[in-house]
């Protein structure tokens, strides 16, 4: 039996939003968030009861983030904008450094980017990341590892 869709929102909306902010930046994240949950709501009655709803939602969110990235590449907008500073505070040195990190995250190959964000911003296990990326646990682990390695090269 499927739980109320509202229960999925209560449980996972924050993490999905975090994933999207980290994947596509705060501006695109809001639209991706709407697209993700509208698509999820549409498909929900066909979800097999007992499925891992969290991994399912992240799978949808990932595909919406990929769409947003494709769109962004067509437009002259830099990918991976940094999260906006709170209360419009002026960018500090650490904000600027974060900005470079987001640019670096945005420049990662898609699978590594998703793996890194799912692992660190959303706290998913390697097994769950494997489900979202449709690969083995080991491949998920490798993508996280490779992604972090690359980030360290450009953001040391």
């Amino acid at each position: 039996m499927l739980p109320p869709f509202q229960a999925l929102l209560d449980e996972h909306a924050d993490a999905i939003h975090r994933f999207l902010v980290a994947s596509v930046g705060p501006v695109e994240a809001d639209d991706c968030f709407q697209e993700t949950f509208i698509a999820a709501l549409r498909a929900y009655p066909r979800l097999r009861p007992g499925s891992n709803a969290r991994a399912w939602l992240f799978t949808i969110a990932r595909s919406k983030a990929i769409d947003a990235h494709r769109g962004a590449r067509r437009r002259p907008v830099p990918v991976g904008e940094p999260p906006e500073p709170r209360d419009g505070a002026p960018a500090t040195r650490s904000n600027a450094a974060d900005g470079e990190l987001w640019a670096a995250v945005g420049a990662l190959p898609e699978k590594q980017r998703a793996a890194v964000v799912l692992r660190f911003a959303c706290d998913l296990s390697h097994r769950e990341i494997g489900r979202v990326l449709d690969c083995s646990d080991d491949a998920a682990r490798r993508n996280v590892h490779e992604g972090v390695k690359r980030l360290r090269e450009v953001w040391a």
Partner: protein
Amino acid sequence: MTDRIERALKKAGRTDGNGVGEALRRLADRATTEGLVDVAYARADSPFGDLLLASTRRGLARVAFLSVTEEDEVADELAARISPRILRAPERLDDARRQLDEYFEGHRRRFELRTDRVLIHGFQRQVLSRTAQIPYGSYLTYAEVAAEAGSPRAHRAAGTALARNPIPIVIPCHRVLRSGGLVGNYGGGPEMKARLLEMEGAL
């Protein structure tokens, strides 16, 4: 080194506090507009504790007393019995909430709400249809309702049907009493039933 990167990544999306709240409101609106919400629900307060109101596209399907049950439990029940596409969408219950407020304040004697009787089956349908016609300020006995629903000897079954009324207050099952004027049981408690009947001037 890794720690610094991990820490920065973990901060992602935690910079704005009300982002998700606003996004969720927009989602409920858009999902409603696109016809993807099979059941919308909201809490409402009342002099007898909080209520949960739930509506389908056809109308009000459920009024639950949160003094005796939990919001999650009701949502689970609605997901199982109507559809799992259920969302908190308070605006869709605004009309019901307003009319209930007016009723509890003593300013409304009948509800002008469409109801969806999707949770009502079999003999219960006849019993509750008859009950829905009992006017404000009067009452019937279980035996009378059973007789008028077509089964004079089924007063016990009528009692069960009333006890499981999914839309209490709007379908006024509090207006059905035991013979001899005894108030009898009620989903929100016998005291609530007595107070409603007093307010209506039936007792």
